[in-house]
């Protein structure tokens, strides 16, 4: 016995679906931005032969300088590692103050949060530039420091958020035995988020090594400086070799850190 449509209880009024409105607003806005920035996909469509020709210049990598590149790559990786360790230490000490449920008072909470925000907001390339011209001079030291400051902002924020998510009961239990700020951290806070912390730190290490490769562009050592020089001198075969070394290293590191992170879970 199939029911007749006319006898059916009516559907409630359909809520207005705003999706098409949003979508067309976004497309319109993007269009306006494209026009304002003078972007024409025509450059890509009409110039694709030129672009292909350009990329074909990278097709014969010259590995004669490879040992030098490997040293530069090692320097880049070392820069990333030092930056990460610095970031970890800074984040480790700042995060507890930036966690709402642990921070001793509203003052330290806001101060720590603002400090972390500022560190995150300053791009590492900019920090490296400033540190170099401010007196640290050219070389990887400024790069490592810049990476450390910038990513401490991230690690500090992530750690603080993890500390906030720890089960309230764990902290209360320690409050009940009369534990202080640092004791609560060492016996309830950090042990509960050890796994997450290692995951975040590995992720930042990965990111820092990647970014360290470009800090050379502004004079902070590592493989970036060689890449910049060879590209500026239109030495495409050497650039290609450098890019290959860079890509392979980073892809290997990516696999490794993925592997370790999957082990952590």
């Amino acid at each position: 016995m199939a029911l007749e449509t006319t006898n059916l209880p009516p559907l409630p009024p359909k809520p207005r679906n705003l999706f098409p409105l949003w979508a067309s607003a976004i497309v319109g806005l993007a269009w306006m931005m494209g026009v304002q920035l003078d972007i024409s996909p025509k450059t890509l469509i009409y110039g694709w032969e030129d672009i292909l020709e350009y990329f074909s210049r990278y097709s014969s990598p010259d590995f004669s300088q490879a040992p030098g590149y490997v040293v530069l790559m090692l320097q880049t990786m070392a820069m990333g590692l030092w930056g990460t360790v610095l970031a970890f230490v800074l984040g480790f000490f700042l995060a507890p103050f930036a966690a709402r449920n642990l921070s001793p008072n509203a003052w330290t909470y806001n101060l720590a949060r603002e400090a972390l925000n500022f560190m995150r907001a300053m791009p590492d390339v900019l920090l490296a530039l400033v540190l170099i011209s401010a007196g640290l001079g050219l070389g990887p030291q400024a790069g490592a420091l810049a990476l450390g400051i910038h990513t401490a902002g991230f690690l500090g924020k992530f750690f603080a958020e993890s500390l906030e998510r720890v089960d309230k009961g764990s902290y209360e239990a320690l409050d009940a035995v009369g534990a202080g700020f640092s004791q609560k951290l060492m016996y309830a806070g950090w042990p509960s988020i050890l796994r997450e912390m290692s995951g975040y730190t590995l992720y930042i290490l990965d990111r820092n090594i990647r970014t360290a490769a470009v800090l050379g562009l502004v004079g902070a050592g590592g493989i970036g400086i060689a890449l910049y020089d060879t590209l500026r001198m239109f030495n495409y075969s050497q650039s290609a070799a450098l890019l290959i070394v860079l890509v392979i290293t980073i892809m290997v590191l990516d696999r490794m850190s993925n592997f370790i992170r999957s082990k952590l879970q």
Partner: protein
Amino acid sequence: MSAIVIDKVEKTYANGTRAVHGISLNIEPGQFTVILGPSGAGKSTLLRMMNGLETPSAGSVTINGTLLERKTLRQVRRTVGMVFQQFNLVGRLNVMTNVLTGRLAYRSWLGSVLHLFRDKDLVIGHEALARVGLTDKAWVRADQLSGGQQQRVGIARALAQKPRVILADEPVASLDPLASEEVLDLLKGICQNDGISVVANLHQVEYSRRYADRIIGINAGRVVFDGPPDALTDEVVEALYRRPTSPEEKSHEPAALALAHA
């Protein structure tokens, strides 16, 4: 013609577990058939083979005269509605869209990407929702409904397929007693009034006696009882839920598991 013909069907999983040992059954149209048995008896595997969610290792399944195989899969599934223990709705879509997914097998991929359905589909969806008494929830997101309501949306989705058979895999196992009876009453009504065959897996003896036209008792992958509810005596039930004795089955049919649901 039987609605479903199951012929010497077997199922052995990749890990060596033998879930179904050569079962043959004919399921008649318009009947409410309950497959009864303890957890892990192979009920679910058997039911899921009836619309190709599992492929038999041996034997064949024929639905309304069409042999279930790779190339007929979509065509067969179109006429076989399925209701799940965990409802399996897409929580972020609204109720009406969930019901209309029952029409997908009739629509092209391009139209469905644009969320375009025919007026006819909307009428079918409306009817199905009215049948389960949820028209007022049509534009609510599915994950905001209670369990019983979600299961009724699941039934509406199956109805929207205009099926000839509805398979229900433990439809009330996740529901409280009140919602369970609502859902089973609904399925029974659909079976009686719309002439749709219903095959339901249950593990509750009481519900089986109350709702079934025919009960098929399964234990350790074999049919151990087949008959009307009156024939399901207490002795039969005890035998049905008794732990298997042969050592082979014992290994994958822990007695505790079987008894837990008796």
